[in-house]
């Protein structure tokens, strides 16, 4: 659906050229939700803005729905852009227009006749759950509602792709989740390809099928979300994964407990089916070890659950060894050396 080939973007600042995006290739399949994660300054914003040529790549080609955007003439580019919706961190809706009029705006641009516009706007208002707020001005809406207007507006011309530029970064956690649910619903119901950028692993976990991790202008790791969670290769990817599975309190309680505690500190990582298995029960029953649960968390991704459990095992050395061998057959096991 989307293909980036040899994309580069260099900005020429007073202090010299800045390579915002270095030689990057990326393919995004039809119907998937593709996430790009990175810290600020990683080049992810520049990357997504090149997908509709708001930012023109210095080198390389951008192909969306078999159209090579970088080669299109001005007029054709405008038409192509009508098939690529975009939502923004700060919503970017017009304060001078009501909800209804904001949603009608892209329809005016594409030249839809007035009678048809009305029906389409109504449909969109219902789709994003703003029924009853049609005549409100943006200043009367909450952040989440403003983003819903943004989404309705982006979907108005039945685009094939939706670009989300930090769409939830200005929202509180609860509103973020409701917007993510809406995006997931749109992806499923309309089969829309969604590309989003974010700095929150939570967003990737919750709705993305595949993810690319960006650092210093390059994509350093890419793959299905669950794989990335299970086998993060780059240090920065591990950082992001740990944002979710190892909250600060967990690290603290582990270091606290491992100080002078006797026993073996172990971390189990569960993927997919394994999250349902009664591992702890088995260890206690069959291997006669004492299992002291320290911390645990199960995270759900689009492709299934992913969890981490930290336990302190006590018992005979051989019993612990046997227990660990058994566990290795079920889940990923990491023995954490006592501090």
């Amino acid at each position, binding site marked *: 659906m989307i293909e980036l080939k040899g994309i580069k973007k260099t900005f020429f600042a007073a202090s010299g050229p800045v390579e915002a995006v270095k030689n990057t290739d990326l393919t995004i399949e039809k119907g998937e939700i593709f996430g790009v994660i990175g810290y600020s300054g990683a080049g992810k914003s520049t990357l997504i803005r090149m997908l*509709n040529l*708001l930012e023109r790549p210095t080198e390389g080609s951008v192909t969306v729905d078999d159209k090579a955007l970088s080669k299109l003439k001005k007029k054709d*580019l*405008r*038409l*192509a*852009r*009508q098939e*690529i919706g*975009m939502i*923004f961190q*700060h919503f*970017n*809706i*017009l*304060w*001078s*227009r009501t909800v209804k009029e904001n949603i009608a*705006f*892209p329809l*005016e*641009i*594409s030249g839809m006749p007035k009678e048809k516009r009305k029906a389409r706007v109504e449909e969109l208002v219902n789709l994003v759950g703003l029924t009853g707020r049609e005549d409100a*001005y*943006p*200043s009367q809406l909450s952040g989440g509602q403003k983003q819903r207007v943004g989404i309705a*507006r982006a979907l108005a*011309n039945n685009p094939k792709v939706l*670009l989300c530029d930090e769409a939830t970064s200005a929202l509180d956690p609860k509103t973020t989740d409701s917007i993510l649910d809406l995006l997931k619903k749109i992806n499923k119901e309309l089969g829309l390809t969604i590309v989003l950028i974010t700095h929150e692993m939570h967003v990737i976990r919750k709705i993305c099928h595949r993810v690319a991790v960006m650092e210093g202008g390059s994509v350093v790791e890419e793959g299905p979300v669950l794989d990335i969670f299970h086998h993060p290769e780059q240090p920065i990817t591990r950082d992001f994964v740990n944002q979710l599975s190892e909250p600060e309190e967990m690290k603290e309680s582990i270091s606290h407990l491992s100080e002078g505690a006797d026993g073996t500190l172990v971390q189990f990582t569960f993927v997919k089916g394994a999250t349902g298995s009664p591992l702890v029960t088995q260890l206690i029953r069959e291997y006669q070890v004492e299992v002291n649960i320290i911390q645990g968390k199960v995270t759900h991704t689009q492709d299934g659950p992913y969890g981490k459990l930290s336990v302190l095992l006590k018992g005979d050395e051989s019993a612990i060894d046997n227990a660990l061998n058994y566990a290795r057959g079920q889940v990923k096991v990491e023995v954490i050396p006592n501090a």
Partner: protein
Amino acid sequence: MLSSLFPNVRWEDMWEASLQTMYMTAISVFATFILGIALGLLLFLTSKGNSWENKFVNGIVAGVVNLFRSIPFIILIILLIPLSVYIVGTMLGANAALPALIAGAAPFYARMVEIALREVDRGVIEASQAMGATNGQIIFKVLLPEAMPALISGITVTAIALVSYTAMAGVVGAGGLGDLAYLDGFQRNNPDVTLVATVLILVIVAVLQVIGDVTTRAMDKR
């Protein structure tokens, strides 16, 4: 009663002068609004980072705007007499003052328009580009509506400046309240005429200010 308080005021003259002032103000405000927005748009769109970015055009327009803003109005009227003769066919009367009034006020307003347009959220313009809007659509559906409250309060300030410019237009025999106050009031030593003319000008200014404020408030949905 009025005639005993203001023995030298000829009310029909006063009325005619008021009409002349209102006529000159109305026409010049209207023309300034259109011309100022056009110039302001040109200044904004040709500036750095905008869709018609063009240093050369921007420099020329900015130069002309600054030049006309710097010439004192009383001198501008005299300088523009040949132009007025060419456009309106006479160098005397209210119509003869119009080219000078507009040439004096439009550049002043154009700068306010430029500032108002710069205040429009860049993100909104960008979102419109992402939707595939043409430059014309961005101008008429985004830039102007989003800047409208500032454009209206700007034209209010300009309109009030224009009322005082019309007082100077007396030098080309344009008439109006200012002219009456000077010729009939000051020169002939009739302070009551000056007083009444001044009060009428104040009334016109106050009405303009109220119209401007109410319109700005009604437009501003932020």
